[in-house]
């Protein structure tokens, strides 16, 4: 069948605008960090969500309240409710094994990076995560990342951690030259800025991109990123430096 049925086993609300959903599927799946699923809520809609964790039948999503479907999820979903997913879709992060790795997350962009951190740690990497939030109340998942390595938090308005954007925090850090790879997931500006910096200093980088996902199968063209026509749902959502460079060029021109 087209959708797998999952049952919600746990819901947490770490902040006002974020909910975490733990789900048990009927069959195990094997997503890679960076891959995503289309989550269908019958009579409501279907949206793309990155796997924030996965192990056998168990999967986790971290969902920010943004608009119609995410609000209905936040307000309406309860434990034992069923959800429908298709996936895993897209190409995940290409993982390094060993070495020092820097993760840069903007807001709910930490979702795929959490899953990635877990895997990287298991593969023997030294993980450092930079989590950027707007303000103190938005901070979440700091301790969870702590299990896999170092964590630093930035807030734009507030008292916790670094005061400023995660981009500023990152800039100070990457020049140290001690990272073998950088992974970033956040707003497009963050992805591009971090990638530009990495390309400049010569550190391999991968970023997770977003576009409107419709078919999720690489055929409708909805999720294309200019100028090369890379499809977020098939060629992405994770793109590496070589694929990002032309986007940066187009961005600058």
């Amino acid at each position, binding site marked *: 069948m*087209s959708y797998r049925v999952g049952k919600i086993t746990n819901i947490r609300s770490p902040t006002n605008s974020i909910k975490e959903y733990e789900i048990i599927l009927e069959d195990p799946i094997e997503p890679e960090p960076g891959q995503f699923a289309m989550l*269908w809520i019958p009579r409501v*809609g279907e*949206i793309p969500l990155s796997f924030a964790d996965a192990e056998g039948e168990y999967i986790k999503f971290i969902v920010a309240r943004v608009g119609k479907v995410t609000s209905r999820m936040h307000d309406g979903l309860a434990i034992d409710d069923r959800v429908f997913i298709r996936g895993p879709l897209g190409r995940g992060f290409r993982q390094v094994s060993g070495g020092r790795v820097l993760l840069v997350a903007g807001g709910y962009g930490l979702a795929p990076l959490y899953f990635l951190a877990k895997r990287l740690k298991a593969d023997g990497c030294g993980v450092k995560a930079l989590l950027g939030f707007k303000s103190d109340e938005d901070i979440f998942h700091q301790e969870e990342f702590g299990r896999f390595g170092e964590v630093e938090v930035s807030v734009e308005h507030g008292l916790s951690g670094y005061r400023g954007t995660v981009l500023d925090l990152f800039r100070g850090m990457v020049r140290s030259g001690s990272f073998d790879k950088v992974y970033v997931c956040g707003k497009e500006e963050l992805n591009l800025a971090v990638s530009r910096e990495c390309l400049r200093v010569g550190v391999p980088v991968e970023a997770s991109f977003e576009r409107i996902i419709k*078919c999720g*199968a690489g*055929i409708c*063209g909805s999720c294309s990123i*200019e100028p090369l*026509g890379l499809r977020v749902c098939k060629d992405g959502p994770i793109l590496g430096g070589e694929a990002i460079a032309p986007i940066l060029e187009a961005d600058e021109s």
Partner: protein
Amino acid sequence: MGWELEGMSLDLEVELAGLRLRNPTVLASGILGSSYSLMKRVEEAGAGAITTKTITWEPREGYQNPVFVDLGFGYLNAMGLPNPGMAAFKTELKKAAENIRTPMIASIGGGDEGEFMKVAEHALEAGCDGLELNLSCPHVSGYGLEIGSDLQLTCRIIGAVRSVSSKPVFAKISIHQARPDVVSRYLGSGADGITAINTIRAAAISPESMTPILSNIFGGLSGPCIRPITVAVVYEIRREFPDAPIIGMGGVDGWRAALELILAGANAVGVGSAIARRDLDIFGEIIEGLRRFLTGKDFKSIKELVGYAQRL
């Protein structure tokens, strides 16, 4: 044009209502044909011709998700003809006309004769090499099959577009128009060729949710499961109209399927939803497979195989 496209070789070359294709594969409308960059990738993958997403005069949002269901044996979609409208699409068409050497067929959508005409004229202005009239999309109210169900209106539209077009005009039909009498009227009204077939109206209901899956409830069925229907349609049109240029599409998922449509009578074959499973590599696979088949059987040209299954 004085140059040769890469991959142009006599064995697979076909002629289609005056268009010269390096091989018989054609990107189907609605599949990746919505921007210059995507069309460029399809050209690089080897396609013999490229059809754009259906273009309407005004921008269309399309339907809400879910819009696509993978059924295993085929696909169900109800995109709702999303497109940025002719004004915005024209920029892409122009870039494509300048930079893409594979023939580009613009798919034209319209809710009446006037819209078809306007969109067609602008597409021609932008430099496309052919037009395909979408008379058959089965799930958008006021467009596609709803126009195509009115034979007189359809013939008028074909005639009107024909009269302003310097490029070949293809009528894209559904299973319901796949009758000799209807096709004869289309050709008589000025269609230079037939594209057959569009998706078939269909729906899916999830037993778990007890609701339809598509937000629009109704969508169009494509993929391998409709291939036997396509084969019958193409066979019959070829039998009745020995000289009509036919782009056969519906269920092509590899070289064997492409060959089946060619043997039935298609001059060229559309590749659509199979890209969901095979990605763009499918063009290379079809081209290689057909070439191997030709060589193995000692045919000189793929043209010899068009309608071959009708010989008795």
